[in-house]
């Protein structure tokens, strides 16, 4: 079930269906680089659209992006005049909530652990995901590398027959798309 047009922020995954109208397709492609959800509060410099670096709550992108969705700002939006935001307000504006269902959303993650060919990637959700090292540019995936993911599920759980509650794998599910775009490519925009 496709999300409504105004809420679509994810770049269409390769091989996915083309978006319904050509105008929207052009808009989507244009926003593709900025459309990745930055759920992760990373201290690294994020140069897309001149966002200020910061570990927590960088200010939102100027005008055209709506708060929380598709912006390169990480963390909840900060209104400079308010010193203490309520929990409900912080939650409502957080990227995780603004994103909606996790299915087929593009996100940026950071590899925090490597075991041979398994990459443990944290994208800002409750759990991390584990992906296989791809054949293309395999050596570039080390601890601290930023990668693009297509999220499938935030937590892998299932209710088995005869069980009182769900069994959880304590892991999220995502498909590794590749390395995150370099800063130079972002600065060109």
């Amino acid at each position, binding site marked *: 079930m496709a999300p409504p047009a105004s809420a679509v922020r994810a770049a269409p995954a390769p091989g996915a269906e083309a978006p319904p109208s050509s105008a929207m397709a052009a808009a989507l492609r244009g926003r593709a680089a900025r459309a990745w959800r930055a759920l992760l*509060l990373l201290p690294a410099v994020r140069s897309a659209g001149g966002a200020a670096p910061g570990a*927590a*709550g960088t200010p939102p992108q100027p005008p055209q992006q709506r708060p929380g969705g598709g912006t390169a700002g990480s*963390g*909840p939006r900060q209104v400079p005049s308010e010193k*203490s*935001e309520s*929990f*409900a307000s*912080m*939650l409502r504006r*957080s990227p*995780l*909530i603004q994103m*909606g*269902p*996790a299915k087929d959303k593009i996100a940026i993650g950071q590899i*925090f652990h490597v075991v041979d060919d398994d990459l443990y990637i*944290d994208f*800002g*959700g*409750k*759990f991390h995901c584990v992906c296989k090292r791809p054949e293309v540019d395999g050596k570039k995936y080390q601890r601290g590398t930023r990668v693009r993911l297509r999220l499938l599920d*935030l*937590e892998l*759980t299932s*209710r088995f027959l005869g069980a009182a*509650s*769900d*069994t*959880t794998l*304590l892991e999220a599910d995502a498909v590794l798309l590749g390395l995150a775009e370099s800063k130079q490519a972002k600065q060109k925009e």
Partner: protein
Amino acid sequence: MPVRWHLAAPVQSRLVPAKSGSVCSSLSADDDKLLTEPLSHPDFFSVKELFTLKDLFDARVHLGHKKGCRHRFMEPYIFGCRLDQDIIDLDQTMQHLQLALNFTAHVAYRGGIILFVSRRRQFCHLVESTARACGEYAHTRYWQGGLLTNAHILFGPGVRLPDLLIFLSTLNNVFEPHVAIRDAAKMNIPTVGVVDTNCNPCLISYPVPGNDDSPAAMELYCKLFRMTIIRAKDKRRQSEAVEELQRKAEGN
């Protein structure tokens, strides 16, 4: 088979009577004042300034498990359910965390033994290093049956049991409540525990509803407990030093 507590270096100025667990065995008037003065303040150790709502939010403390994993008794602490994922109410978490940290500080101030317990392999090193950093103890391995309830047989007579158990995750490896919760309740040992949406908060004296699966959240809890315990111990040392000086002044 002897069981090794993961011992850290004990703090020097600690009232440790050999046999009994209580710290009030031999008190003078000064000690009495030292021990009763903190009890008259609601937040003697200013634990409220150690963390803010934003810190909790950024550390992903509000994220819970999926709806199907929810424990019935965690429902009062849950803010809501978003696309099947439970969200923990951070306003309640703030209050519970303040109570828990305040209690931990008081126990540490009175020279109590604190034992950190967690059965999560991902965070076992973090928990152990936290315990070492604040001069307390940790147990992050398999919990043998009678560690608390059968201690005088396992360890010999005259062993002193912990005065507080801090659970950084209340579940064991098979998603059942940790045995130490029940055993601590049996032995009248108060417990502080971080309870996620799939945990049972029942027997825990100071439950703290919050995420126990993300590294960010666990690091925050460890940092808060460590700072609280160190702050309380420093305050104790300061108060004792002041008492000492006053006594010397009066003596002269």
